[in-house]
């Protein structure tokens, strides 16, 4: 049976999925990036090779996320796609007819507007990471609450507490102020969820026509407090797909399927790559005044990828 691998290398998590030709998720991993993407990709693929049923062949591989080029050259991806397209494709697969996608990940948040299955508009947070997973992580740690209980606690709130959502620095000082005044933790957390949603809708969602069905995905969708805050702010139901945290990987696996259907072959290097030694190095190019920091990745002793330069000088074709 043919199946397809999708790898989403994000700032906080690396997700690897195996999707069948019919679009069913056979295996899905959500792993923390921990600043070591190469190691995590290798371990993840190894784990995948052990889970998938015997007799299954990998007919295509796709990579997405901010580390998509890295994953692409390591695995030999058939398609390397931006995460906006990947998320839109996955949302359309899970919820046919979807018109709005909210995606909140570790470092960025995006909104994707679809009409009749086609992306017609999108936006990503630009200069501010307020309201993304990293900030929630940090606050959970500060309050000593496991991140997976954050949302449930928010739902227990009985009294509204307003937290400033414009900027994480303001939000944090506001939270501390409210906590020192004696407000209950669930109320503060709920206030934070509402603030983040307010910030998202005013910043990323600014000027966008938000129509149902709305799908909410990305790591932060695990937080039911945020989901409730979205529903309250919009007055519309928000759906969370079953595989909400690995949607990017699912989308790019689907794109790999479409790509290999055209070409007929896959450039996947096989699971043997999990045992290969990979090394990265970097140097400063002084060919011009840009002084680009060029990074290269070596498989055994062969350079398989280079990036970071502004011109084509160091590109490997």
């Amino acid at each position, binding site marked *: 049976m043919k199946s397809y691998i999708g790898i989403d290398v994000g700032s906080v998590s690396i997700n690897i999925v195996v999707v069948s030709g019919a679009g069913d998720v056979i295996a899905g991993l959500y792993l923390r990036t921990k600043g070591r993407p190469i190691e995590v990709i290798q371990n993840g693929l190894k784990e995948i090779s052990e889970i998938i049923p015997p007799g299954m062949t990998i007919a295509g591989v796709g990579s997405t996320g901010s580390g998509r080029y890295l994953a692409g050259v390591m695995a030999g991806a058939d398609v390397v796609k*931006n995460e906006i397209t990947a998320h839109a494709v996955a949302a359309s697969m899970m919820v046919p007819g979807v018109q709005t996608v909210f995606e909140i990940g570790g470092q960025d948040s995006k909104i994707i507007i679809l009409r009749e299955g*086609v*992306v017609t508009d*999108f936006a*990503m947070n630009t200069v501010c990471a307020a309201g993304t997973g990293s900030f929630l992580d940090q606050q959970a740690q500060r309050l000593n609450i496991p991140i997976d209980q954050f949302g449930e606690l928010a739902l227990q709130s009985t009294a509204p507490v307003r937290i400033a959502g414009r900027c994480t620095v303001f939000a944090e000082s506001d939270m501390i102020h409210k906590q020192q005044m004696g407000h209950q933790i669930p109320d503060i957390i709920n206030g934070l969820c509402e603030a983040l949603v307010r910030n998202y809708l005013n910043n990323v969602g600014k*000027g966008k026509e938000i129509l149902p069905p709305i799908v909410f995905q990305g790591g932060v969708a695990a937080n039911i407090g945020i989901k409730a805050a979205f529903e309250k702010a919009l007055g519309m139901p928000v759906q969370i797909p079953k595989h909400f945290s690995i949607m990017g990987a699912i989308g790019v696996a689907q794109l790999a399927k479409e790509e290999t259907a055209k070409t007929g072959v896959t450039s996947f290097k096989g699971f043997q790559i999990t045992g290969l030694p990979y090394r990265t190095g970097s140097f400063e190019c002084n060919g011009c005044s840009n002084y680009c920091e060029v990074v290269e990745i070596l498989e055994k002793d062969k350079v398989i990828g280079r990036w970071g330069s*502004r*011109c*084509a000088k160091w590109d490997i074709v």
Partner: protein
Amino acid sequence: MSKVTFPRMGESWRTFKMLLEDLGNEVVVPPRPSKKTLDLGVRHSPEFACFPLKILTGTYLETIEMGADTIVTSGGMGPCRAGEYAMLHHKILKDLGHDMKMIVFELPRYYPFNFIKNVWTLNKSRVCIRGIISRIKRAWRKLQALDNAEKLSHVVRPREINRGATTRVYHKILDWIDQAYTTEQIIEAEAAALEAMRNIPQDHTREVLKVGIIGEIYVLLEPASNLEMEETLGNLGVEVERSMFLTGWTRDNTWTETTQGMTVKEAAAPYLPELIGGHGRDSIGNTILFAKRGFDGMVQLAPFTCIPEIVARTILPRVSRDYDIPILTFFLDEQTGKAGMSTRLEAFTELMRRKKLLLKKKNVAQKNIYIA
């Protein structure tokens, strides 16, 4: 003898260098903005100031190291703080111990005497008035040649067969134009340059998208400040047309590239009837003109915290809906990570491509109905 420098905006420095030298000045060519420029600029500028101010602070400090003691720059009108930058730079540099001579050109249309006085100050060789006029004319011709070469590079790049060929040829021909001195030489170099560019192997059957670029003038004109956005788009198979070139901007406020006789001001009027400073109104007006010409999308470039562009940004979604043209905005600052920008541009290109395909299918379907 005093050593003169000026802000760097793309390749225009080649013209300014020639003109200033023609008038008998020793010129310090401002280096291309680099990491060092940013480091210096960010360290010595107010934190909340916009990106162009910071780059220029850095550039000036670099040219001072190279011996410059006079800065020629522009003033400005209307409610955009860039009009005060010459003064602010003067103060910042003075605080750092560099008492620079500033020669600030205001819009000649409103301040003719300022213009004459400044030209006279820079006229070290005491060239006669006719001599000055002919030198300005020649410099103008060179500026046009540089702009024309750049415009053509935007058309050729998305169609090139060998990736990077256009950029390589473009860098070579810039030197040809640079070395041309007399008007005849400039015209000849320009013709050769355009010819060389047209001869780059191209695939004319390729489906190329057309995107208009709007926004604040400095980040539009200096590629180092916008992470070489136009080149990146060209490599994604997108032909770009920038709303602003130095030749166009200098040509007063009247716009020659009008569509159906409409000026930028008129086009923007239903959405923004006021001048809000900077190029906010131009961004809106140009979007409408590009949309009318059938462009596939728009990219807006703005320095972070730029008020005129923020105002334009809040109006643009309505323009986008009314004219059915997708618009992507980038706020630029000192970040040099290109990954985020590439992701957005890639997704934007895909969006435009799918939209175009869908439109084509619809048109075909319509045609089939008529045939049936």
